[in-house]
């Protein structure tokens, strides 16, 4: 069974969903539609996929400092990922979760896990335990 333990960056309890493994860095602003969760950057390899409800694996973040607002709006619109797994925690992005928490919205957890492990979760259903354990399979 495929399993990894990630560091919890922002706590929010257990989570689960289909994995969406990004294979290139993403800019949330201009890269993700805040109202639907669709990846809209035509230069991104996962363009056309939707991050809503997914366990989103992010190898790197790039681009505008508006990412936090996009993530806040995704949470508000109910289109946030079920969990966000990052190689490097990006404070600009994750601030969107902290602000959502200040507005008393339910937020997904954010975890740190080395990107070399992401491929093993590709196309899997992933469960995330309260201690940051990622398990593939239903």
């Amino acid at each position, binding site marked *: 069974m495929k399993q990894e333990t990630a560091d919890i*960056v*922002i706590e929010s309890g257990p989570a689960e969903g289909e994995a969406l493994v990004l294979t290139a*860095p993403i*800019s949330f*602003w*201009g*890269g993700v539609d*805040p*109202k639907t969760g669709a990846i*809209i*950057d*035509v*230069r991104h390899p996962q363009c056309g996929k939707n991050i809503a409800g997914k366990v989103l694996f992010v190898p*790197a*973040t*790039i*681009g*505008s*400092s*508006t*990412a*936090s*607002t*996009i993530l*806040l*709006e995704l*949470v*508000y*619109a109910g289109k946030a990922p079920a969990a966000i797994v990052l190689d490097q*925690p990006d*404070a*600009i*992005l*994750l*601030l*969107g979760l*902290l*602000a*959502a928490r*200040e*507005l008393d919205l339910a937020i997904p957890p954010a975890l740190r896990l080395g990107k070399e492990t992401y491929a093993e979760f590709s196309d899997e259903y992933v469960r995330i335990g309260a201690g940051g354990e990622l398990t593939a399979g239903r």
Partner: protein
Amino acid sequence: MAVDLSDEERIIAAGDDGAAMALRLVRDAAGLLGATRLIPIKSAHIDGAVYHGDSGTIFAEKLVAGGARVAVPSTLNVGALDLTGCSRQLLPEHDRAMAKRMMRAYLDLGCSPTWTCAPYQAGHRPEKGTDVAWGESNAVVFCNSVLGARTNRYGDLLDIASAIAGKAPDFGLHRPENRVATFVFDVGQLSSEFLASETAWPILGNLFGRVAGHDIGVIDGISAKPDEDQLKAFGAAAASSGAVGLFHIAGITPEAATVETAGGGQRPEHVIQVTQQMVSEARRTLSTTENPDRIDAVAVGSPHLSAEEFQRLEQILNGRQLNVPLYACTGRHVLSKLEANGVRARLETLGVTIVADTCIVVTPILPENPGSVLMTNSGKFAHYAPGNTGYAVLYGSLAECVESAIAGRPVLTEGRV
């Protein structure tokens, strides 16, 4: 990692007002960033007032309702509406009302109504070495690189939170040891003809951003001193294609008297030798369409145009009428000059739409029209327009953009391989 707050900070954070909410966000961001304390800041540039959905308005209004005010001079980046009335936004009624409420909330927090992504050309110029909290990636990179003030790439919620707290996490580019170049971006092999061309800076910026990622580089091989508009174009392109917060140019920018100075006393070992082929490749990737038979619009002004850039635009236009719309984005600091010297009226007669307070990639201004082609000379517009407007992008120089807008079809004359 635990953040060590002062007694005063701890008391504020434990409250239930807007100041408490702001300080908690700065504290929690500091924790995410690995900072152990907060430091005082002298100014802020706030990128949080663009409407992307109701949550941003609700967030700002919660701060206002909690009695929060900015503690340091704070300029505002663009909003989603052109409050000057120069241009029209195609927002649905609900979004327009929420966008307007959001802009008002940021003014109620005490921010200045600058509404520009080029605050450094609107009089907001912190001194070298001062700590500030700026948002908007192009403003951040200009502030660090060209002014030598110190800021991280603040997200558009952390910037207002820091401005209210008057504090920022002690982290990253606030610390001198993190401002050192770790690679050389050597452009010395490129032709002087290319380096002197207008598109050199945005194209090199795009390339620099893609090779830099999060790293800091020093550009070597620049002999002619670039003007501020060229540095602005370079930084904006670099901060769109990569997570660039600071660059150095040997002999030009304030922390890079030499390559060695920028490298913290030694020449970085890692050297990227930029070739003409890499330049051609970067130029090609700025466009998402290759040989369109027509263009539907031209957009310039990301970052916002300066008065000098408007002069160039008017010179190239030379009184000729446009056949497709040309959107020229700028701030009030320039608009007031354009109104005083008659440039606004003359340009509008020729078919130019001036866009103030906002720009074409943050709010719907371009008519929705599947399959449309936008031409631009901005590396940043080229990067963001396809996702944010649905238009395909054709990249070219200002002269090419203007000639194409007159002809209604692409007129490309420069540097094609």
